């Protein structure tokens, strides 16, 4: 099914999951405190590194601090490790059969659902973290981007991040359709993606050779590129170049995922009544 009407129903799915997610605001509050503490820990560690460096690294400390705060603020969006456990459970149980009965494309339904949940989780947390991070005493504070073009690029990049993260995550659900247990693929995926996207170590602090390779791979376009734009660590033209690569990966993985799920659906085995 194509056309405006069908897209509307996926937006409805997104909206429902968004509202459900927003109700977990209490958990979000404690989550924010946790993220704050971790942000401060990490900044302290890197500060100690920077203070003892004979030759300072390319990325100035204040930008690194903003980068680290961004990681904390947008954590719910950028980690592959977080997934929709209910959906995984549905697949394992066989309840996914109910969704197959509905007049929705399975891929699009799952995609919209996960989008809704991730957006809800992030929306609750990123603003308070960004606001309070600005109020921290120097040099622990976040600095906002000044160039309006950077801001626009950043917003666009977040959109790419969302599509990329969810299209990558979709592979987990597709694999789970076959294997019924998401444990192993989830572990492998999150180990690989969450490291190379810059969450464990910011990509600008990785060895140069690494960074060159990562430029072409999808990993750094999940979060690293976004935060480099935010902190204005790279020129806007280079940023746009990177975004093109990121968009290419996002669309490519989306398309591949839809193809794969289509194949899976034909040979699906539903367990249980």
């Amino acid at each position, binding site marked *: 099914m194509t056309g405006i009407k069908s897209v509307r129903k996926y937006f409805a799915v997104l909206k429902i999951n968004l509202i459900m997610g927003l109700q977990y605001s209490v958990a979000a509050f404690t989550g924010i405190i946790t993220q704050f503490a971790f942000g401060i820990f990490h900044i302290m560690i890197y500060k100690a590194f920077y203070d003892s460096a004979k030759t300072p690294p390319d990325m100035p400390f204040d930008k690194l601090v903003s980068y680290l705060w961004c990681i904390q603020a947008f954590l719910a969006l950028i980690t592959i490790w977080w997934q929709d456990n209910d959906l995984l459970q549905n697949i394992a149980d066989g309840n996914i059969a109910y969704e197959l009965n509905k007049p929705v494309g399975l891929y699009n339904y799952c995609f919209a659902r996960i989008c809704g949940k991730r957006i809800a989780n992030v929306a609750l947390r990123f603003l308070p973290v960004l606001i309070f991070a600005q109020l921290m005493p120097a040099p622990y504070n976040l600095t906002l981007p000044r160039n309006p073009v950077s801001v626009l690029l950043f917003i666009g990049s977040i959109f790419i991040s969302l599509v990329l993260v969810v299209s990558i995550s979709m592979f987990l659900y597709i694999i789970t359709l076959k294997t019924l*247990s998401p444990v192993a693929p989830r572990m492998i995926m999150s180990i690989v993606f969450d490291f190379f996207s810059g969450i464990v170590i910011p990509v600008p*602090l990785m060895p140069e050779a690494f960074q060159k390779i990562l430029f072409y791979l999808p990993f750094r376009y999940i979060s690293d590129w976004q935060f480099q734009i935010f902190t204005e660590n790279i020129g806007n033209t280079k940023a746009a170049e990177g975004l093109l690569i990121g968009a290419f990966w996002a669309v490519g993985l989306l398309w591949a995922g839809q193809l794969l799920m289509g194949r899976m659906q034909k040979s699906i085995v539903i367990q249980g009544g």
Partner: protein
Amino acid sequence: MKLYFKYVEIAFKGLIQYPLNFIATFFGQMATTALGFIGVYMLFMRFDNLAGYSFSEVALCYSVSFTVFAFTECFFRGFDRFSNMIVKGTFDLVLVKPRSEILHILGSTIEFSRLGRMITGIVILVLSVNMADIRWNIYKGIAFILMLAGGTAVFSGLFILGASFCFVTVQGIEVVNIFTDGGREFASYPLTIYEKWAVKFFTYVIPYACFNYIPLAFITDKAVDYPQILYMLSPLVCFIFFIPCIVVWKISVRHYLSTGS
């Protein structure tokens, strides 16, 4: 004690039912810890030293912290998951059973997969001990063992404390997470690199320093300010920390019983 080993046996049997899951999680955990360590290595490639500490010294801190935490997580996970027990009401079942409730909670969840992290931790520990070129003697050996024991005491104390908060609010455990997961990260580096207030807090309030930095300074021959014996025995402070944690737990349980449920 026999009962506890029975629990271990049950947990192990449960594990074998799903061998693939266990293997995946086990190796996955090994890999995660290893990658974290590779991250630190990359940082040292760029920065060359951390506040005067060499890579091998930081690696020692890192591996001790991770090893100890993994060990504690494996066996004390029951307390970390305690909010589940309260919400589902299984804690009441535990209270009805004979023997200490602590025993039952410990037995309820034993995550062998965490041993995967522990193995990576131990490997890094062995490597960094070799790298660090330490001159061992019997006292340093004792200090080392006390380090590991002290670390376990601190983390398990925190787990138990966190579980005590569950009686009041389930969110309590999230905050304690800052000091357990966060603490593990924090204690991975020699504590003197941090701001003064952090160092003070994590020496006197939650004594990471006593199983991380202080005995380490003794082992790497950097201990000069105070008599040596103080450095060697500092992990005993960790055991002192453990006592109020248990006390708070006992009080919480008693309060829970008296409110009648």
